[in-house]
């Protein structure tokens, strides 16, 4: 019996030694920004890619952008290339002077914080939310950033409500919208939506005394919506 225990101990001790790689431990974090201001997007939807050349097989590391425009990734030290695929996000990549393309060279040697500057089609400026009775009203100003040949029109502006801080096109309990063609003045956009009688997804349980609101902008021909910051509203 003792022999078996010793044997088992030896096996445990030997097998757990140096047979594993270190886990990635270098943090790359930052935000997707326009002139230093974070661009808000929907959760889990917008991604960019990191490529590390020099290995046998190619494969991108996909990094998700959070709803507030921030991101973080655990990586190994090394030389990476960063690209934002053209279909991602309500923005266009800016030309990188070093590579003369949308590719950004990225050297990781320890933790690094880096904001990625992009050109959004629009920016949601001065979003304001106000509860009157059981109606949430929102106002904002839409500033057109890209005005050259790549400019795009607004298809719809949405006001979403949800019971969690994740508020976007697939996570909402109430919403209203105005079509882009009905917007008379992009400097004065105003939307109203009724707060549902029950703010719970599970019938009568879990009702809460607050709700989250957010403005979303659908740009025609662009899949990902542009958002304002999330606002918590006490009911």
């Amino acid at each position, binding site marked *: 019996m003792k022999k078996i225990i010793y044997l088992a101990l030896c096996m445990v001790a030997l097998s757990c030694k140096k047979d594993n790689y270190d886990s990635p431990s270098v943090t790359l974090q930052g935000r997707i920004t326009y002139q230093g201001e974070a661009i808000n997007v929907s959760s889990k939807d917008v991604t960019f890619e990191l490529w590390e050349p020099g290995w*046998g*097989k*190619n*494969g*991108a590391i996909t990094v998700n952008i959070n709803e507030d425009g921030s991101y973080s990734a655990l990586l190994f030290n090394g030389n990476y290339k960063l690209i934002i*695929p053209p*279909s991602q996000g309500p923005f266009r990549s800016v030309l990188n002077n070093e590579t003369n393309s949308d590719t950004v060279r990225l050297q990781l040697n320890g933790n690094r914080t880096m904001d990625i500057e992009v050109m959004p089609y629009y920016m949601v400026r001065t979003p304001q939310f106000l509860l009157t009775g059981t109606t949430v009203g929102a106002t904002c100003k839409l500033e057109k950033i890209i005005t050259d040949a790549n400019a795009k029109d607004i298809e719809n502006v949405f006001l979403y409500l949800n019971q969690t801080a994740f508020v976007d*096109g*697939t996570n*909402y309990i109430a919403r209203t919208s105005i079509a882009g063609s009905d917007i008379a003045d992009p400097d004065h956009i105003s939307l109203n939506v009724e707060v549902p009688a029950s703010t719970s997804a599970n019938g009568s349980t879990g009702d809460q005394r607050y709700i989250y609101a957010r403005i979303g902008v659908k740009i025609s*021909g662009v*899949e990902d919506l542009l958002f304002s910051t999330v606002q918590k509203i006490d009911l």
Partner: protein
Amino acid sequence: MWVLNFRFDFLITEIMRKHILIISSFLIFILACNKDADFLNTAPKDILTDDAVWKSEDLTLSVLADLYNRYPEQQTITNWAEYTNFDEAFPSEAGNYWRTKQVDYPYDWWNLWDYGYFRDLNLFVQKCQAADQLSADVRNRFVSEARFLRAALYFEEVKRMGGVPLILEPMEYNFSGDPTYLQHARAKESDIYDFVIAEMDTIKAILPDDASIKARATKGLALAMQARAALYAASIAKYGTSTPTVTLAGGEVGISADKSTAYYTKALAAAQEIISGGKYSLYKKKTEDLQDNFASLFYDKSNNPEVIFAQDFKLKSGKVEDWTLNNQPWSSAEEQQGGRVNPSLNLAQLYEKLDNTYSPFVTNTGSDYVYYDNPLDIFAGRDARLGGTIILPGTKFKGVPLDIWAGVMYWKGGQYNIITGDNFGDQDSIPVAGSPKSSQVVGADGPVDGLQFSAQTGFYVRKFMDQTVGSGQIGTRSEVWWVRYRYAEVLLNAAEAAFELGQSDVAATYINQVRERAGFTIPLTTITFDRIVHERRVELAFEGHELFDNKRWRLAHKVWNGETISAADLVTNIGKADKVNTMIYGLWPYKIYNPGNVNDGKWVYKIVKPSNVTAAHRFKLGNYYSQIGSDILSNNPKLIKNPNQ
């Protein structure tokens, strides 16, 4: 006897122990001295060699059978869960509820890159063409069949991936260390469709023109596939203009709009060649009961005039299917399982009333329920394909009445209250004075929300279900075939092509033939795009068309757009092609308990969303053409990625 054996063994062991070295060397000597040539040249017993195969018609057919067996498919009766990813059905099995909780379809879903199969097909074509020991007729038929399968695989590839490298010869590696000459770029999407269409033109003259052949390629099948492929190409050319970002500059994805007319013309011509050939017709053997007629079209394998191509199964042969085992109603189940595919109310309410109008099932008048004497009454006066596709409450399966009802509504305190159970056919006491101590409060088939195998939408599936006793047993299963091409689809393909070419009256004649078989007596006079889409959805439900139809019409990102739908949204705009259809709803019957009242014992209905339907499906632009795996991309740098991913 065994004692003797034992002793003998013992003896041998004794000898071995003492003379192990001598014996071993002796054995080595014997084995080594065996004739080398014989020893190394043993004929393999588990594989067929080239020398053997191409001399024999039977063996060549065996190789071909294996190629047929690998026919690519997305939704079929042998992978039931694939039907529950969209809006046709709910997955009533605990392990598959995630399908209705998932918002986005991963970009790598439906991808297909089967160049191993292509190689085998190319090898077969090459070697069979050279097989001069087979008679010319046989050889030509075999080669044409392999060419059919190769075209079918290219068709499937282009449906899922867009243009793929068009390889028509088996490639050999020369071990030079440089494989670049084996790397080929993607062909244009239209090139693949053109290839499929041209191949069918070539082989249709060689393949037998015999409608009784269902499991192998025929002239009718070649034309049917040609019509379908041309229609796909045409609609991608036409409707692709609405999604300009779903294209690639080199044409690997996307077909230019000016080609659509030529493709529609080809599709119509191919479909009309089958129609005027007169070898196939709509199945009308049981005209006395049109619902039954529609259901038996899928399981009647004797002289079925409608089926053009099917994957056949046979009992006790090892090649059986388990659609009936997976989906049998609990009330007549032959195992402790079944009921998995629950057709949605979204689908059921698409079946029109017999006056050609769309209407939701009437559950309420004003604030009160509508009371039905029989559970089946709410479904009366509709398209016969409703009852032929879906097992409805109040009908029978295998002679056993269905018992689908969600609970008892009893009158107490001036309102209806609901009592129900949490298992099949649960008993309970209705809390009303004078009611029996214990009575059944939920149907033996459910629906019980969250209980797997119960009819959680209030419906079970009927299409392809086998009425034979034993078809629901694990030890027996079913030999009902999987219909891949049938005449009604040819008619609908012809109707769509004619409609798109501006021949609306021609389209109406074809579509009305299909509708007449479903019990409609008033022919349609005006055909719209919505009608074309609608007719395919109701006629071809559970036949694997929905995803690819919605893709080619570029409707997928509109109908599955990730927006939540309410019960009120569900019952409006029925029959609109781009109606948002992201969440599955059900229709639950309740039994009224109100002794003394005129409504006692009657049935009312409620529209419900199963609690496992939490997400609204979203089909993104990047889903139109599936992702090519990164291993494939890095093996061949000439390949380019699909758009929007």
